[in-house]
């Protein structure tokens, strides 16, 4: 009973903290641009508003449209259950959960893309096509990063894999995972979460026809995914398992904040890449992870 309560509590923490990250990123962007910017809690207000609003559905959609959104959201929430959060560890840990984590993200992608195609819109088809195509390279990079961590620790469970520092390849791994974070969460330079020009977008264009509570689920899921990738990146590099719980928690929170600030700075300072350049950048991310894996294989020294 206590374990169930424990799991529920941690899940609640994940769900509640997630919308904070986009708020921080937007604040950083506003600061760099010299604006005051929206409040950090803006996404919470948006979610609350959307949850109360009515839904406008396309006449073309099937009942699967809303179901797909819901399943994608649930897949992301359940993936959060597998990810350890510093000293608290993961609510659920078993051998091979790292792969389940990756495939739950894939399930979310599958459902989001199908929900987009459901509307029959050419724009959303374009977005879905881009999403699933670039995810191929992103997935190669993530699996390679898992290989690097597994070579380091000899384990296939996220809790053990993420406990020690990533060794000599840490810088490579961090760079690779950061690029994957930007790509998977559709940030600049891969995609621009702020534009509303349908032809140039990936993720935003897939959710053009969502509204009301389903759109709230999409937005919350996206922020949760961003938080998960930040936590994953931070813990891959940070020796969270070797610090005292309090220091580890502080270090984790501080580093996630740093990642959010980093994303904000990247968005302020870089322009979006041309689409034909995206695969090159993702291949670079894959190679960074691959070289991190090879460094781990050589026993952590160059």
């Amino acid at each position, binding site marked *: 009973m206590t374990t169930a309560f424990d799991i529920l509590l941690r899940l609640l923490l994940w769900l509640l903290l997630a919308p904070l990250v986009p708020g921080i990123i937007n604040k950083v962007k506003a600061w760099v641009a010299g604006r005051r910017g929206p409040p950090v809690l803006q996404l919470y207000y948006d979610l609350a508003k959307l949850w*109360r609003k009515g839904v406008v*559905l396309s*006449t*073309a959609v*099937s009942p*699967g449209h*809303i*179901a797909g959104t*819901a*399943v994608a959201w*649930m*897949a992301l929430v*359940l993936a959060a259950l597998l990810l350890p959060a510093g000293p608290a560890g993961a609510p*659920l840990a*078993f*051998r*091979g*959960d790292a*792969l*389940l984590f990756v*495939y739950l993200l894939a399930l979310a*992608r*599958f459902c989001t*893309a*199908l929900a987009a*195609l459901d*509307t*029959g*819109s*050419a*724009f*959303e*088809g*374009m977005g*879905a*096509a*881009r999403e*699933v*195509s670039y*995810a*191929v390279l*992103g*997935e*190669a990079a*993530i*699996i*390679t990063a898992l*290989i690097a961590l*597994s070579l380091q620790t*000899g*384990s*296939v469970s996220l809790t053990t894999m993420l406990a020690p520092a990533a060794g000599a390849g840490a810088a490579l791994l961090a760079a690779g995972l950061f690029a994957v974070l930007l790509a998977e969460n559709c940030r600049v330079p891969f995609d621009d979460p702020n534009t509303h020009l349908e032809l140039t977008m990936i993720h935003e264009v897939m959710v*053009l026809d969502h509204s009301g*509570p*389903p759109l709230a*689920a999409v937005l919350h899921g996206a922020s949760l995914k961003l938080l998960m990738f930040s936590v994953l990146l931070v813990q891959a590099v940070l020796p969270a398992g070797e610090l005292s719980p309090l220091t580890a928690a502080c270090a984790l929170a501080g580093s996630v904040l740093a990642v959010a600030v980093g994303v904000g700075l990247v968005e302020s300072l870089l322009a979006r890449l041309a689409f034909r350049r995206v*695969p090159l950048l993702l291949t670079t991310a894959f190679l960074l992870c*691959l070289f991190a*894996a090879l460094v781990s*294989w050589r026993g952590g020294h160059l």
Partner: protein
Amino acid sequence: MTPGWLLLVAGLGMLIGMVSAFRAKRVWLAATITSAVAALAAAAWVLKAGATWVGRTTLAIGGEPIHLQLDGLSAFFLALLALLGGAGSLYAMAYWTDQQHPVSATSGRAWWNVLLLNMGLVLIVANGLHFLIVWELFTVSAYFLITRERHRREVRAAGWLYLAASHAGTLCLFAFFACLAAHTGNWELGSMRERMELAPLFWLALAGFGLKAGLFPLHIWLPSAHANAPSHVSAILSGVAIKMGIYGLVRFSGWLPVPDLAGWVVAGLGVLSAVLGVAFALGQHDLKRLLAYHSVENIGIILIGLGFAMMAAANGHAAWGQLALAGGLLHVWNHGLFKALLFLGAGSVLHATGTREMSRLGGLWRSMPWTAGLFTLGAVAISGLPPLNGFVSEWLVFLGLFDALSARGATAGAAIPAAVLLGVTGALALACFVKVCGVVFLGLPRSKVAEQAHECGWPMRIPMIVLGTACVAIGLAPVLFWPAIVTASAAWQPFWSETAAPAPLLTLGAFHLVVAALAALAAFALWRRARHNGIRRTGTWDCGYAAPTPRMQYTAGSFAGIITGWFRWILRPERHARIPNEPFPAHAKFEEHTPETVLEHVIEPAGSLVMRVSTAVRRLQHGRLQAYILYLLIGLAALALVALMGGGK
């Protein structure tokens, strides 16, 4: 009842079905399904008890006494055959009716039973000569089933290609069994792992069984044959018949010693098949051809598991090998189940619309909700997504690969690219099935036929529901099926008889249950919330364009365009485009077609080269006696020259 009696019932049922196929189709159906149930029971008995059933008679065929054997491995494949055979029979009743196909339906039923019976026999005979006989019968009966619509040219071409490729494979198997018999002195098959001189024969088996399994680049016959056969035949060919090649590889790599390189070659071919299979699938616009290429991909995943198991066995039975093999074997079942489901779904679409062209379909969920739902279920499974069965087997293979990593050494060097490319394969398969489901079932109908589609009847729906349920069952409770996998892998490698399921499998099953339950709950909750807040219907947002038509939807080709661009070096798509360039363009068109590269760029040029050389050589033989005498004279002169040159020794 013991397996022996059950198998006898199954065999008799098949024979009764064969006879009654022409007159009484209800008797045919009853006999065939009874025999499938009996075979399933026999397989379950063996898999549960872990014992081997052996049947010997003094009755001889071809001078060899009959020797049948149903061990864990045979039973594993027999269970799949029985389930898919039964499901396909019921489906065929409504799909290939006597009204629509007055001639081909009756004989098709008879050939169907010949195919099922001989595939069953391939699994249980333990005599090389008899193996070859039933193998040949199985191959030929499949040819007659593929060419049901013989009046269409492409069907005949597909049939011929299948027959030629199959016989090239059978030729290798003839050589394999003949060499085996020559070495051992008789045709009896069984474990002979200690006779190391037999190891090189594995390459013959790999070529022969590899052609049947359709691994890259021996898959040339597969796409056209599976696409042009009736859908229930495609289901059995893709679900079971190509698994006979896998069965042969597993069987004989277990019974015979293998060369040191075998595991590496098998795993390498597996990776190649997996990635390129799905890449070719992405380039297709024909629904059934696309599914056929996915068979190449899944055979690749199975072979990755088998290859790493062989490496582990060569490395002293490392534990990770068992995981890889378990993943590979479970994927045999899984692929059989979801691929049959998908082919039956595609058949239902074909039945309702009369076309396999994905770009003419769209929006079918309105008229065919059952087919759409079940096909999407199969798509989730084949993309290897939790909580369904495809993920369980891919996960086991992944675990084997990751454990191989911690063993370091050369196998770890192979495990890194294999794991990365397996992940890439999964992501590509996902892209491909998003394309299929989205283009065929979602959106708006792109043509008249798609608008007027109708749902299939219950005889076609029930087999799909059965297969879908099996997919869900393996996904949610993988632990229940673990003993069967252990029994099968113990038949392959007697050292691997550990019966306890790996602990994470139980957790994974529980987690899958949670995923399924929470997903359903979330969908329900979100739907209720939306209903509560009020739903308004309006047209899809089209960026302000005034007159959107269904033809403006993203098509299959445009959806896959980015990825097929990456693989252009091997796909070599043919393009015919007329690009508009004047201010008021009158005509513009764009066509892209991905041919079978290996066939058109390797096999056909090689074939025409052989033809040219042969034609040139044929000119030597023209029937003029004078010239023949000249040849004799030249030959004599050459001999004399040789004698003069070498005569000094």
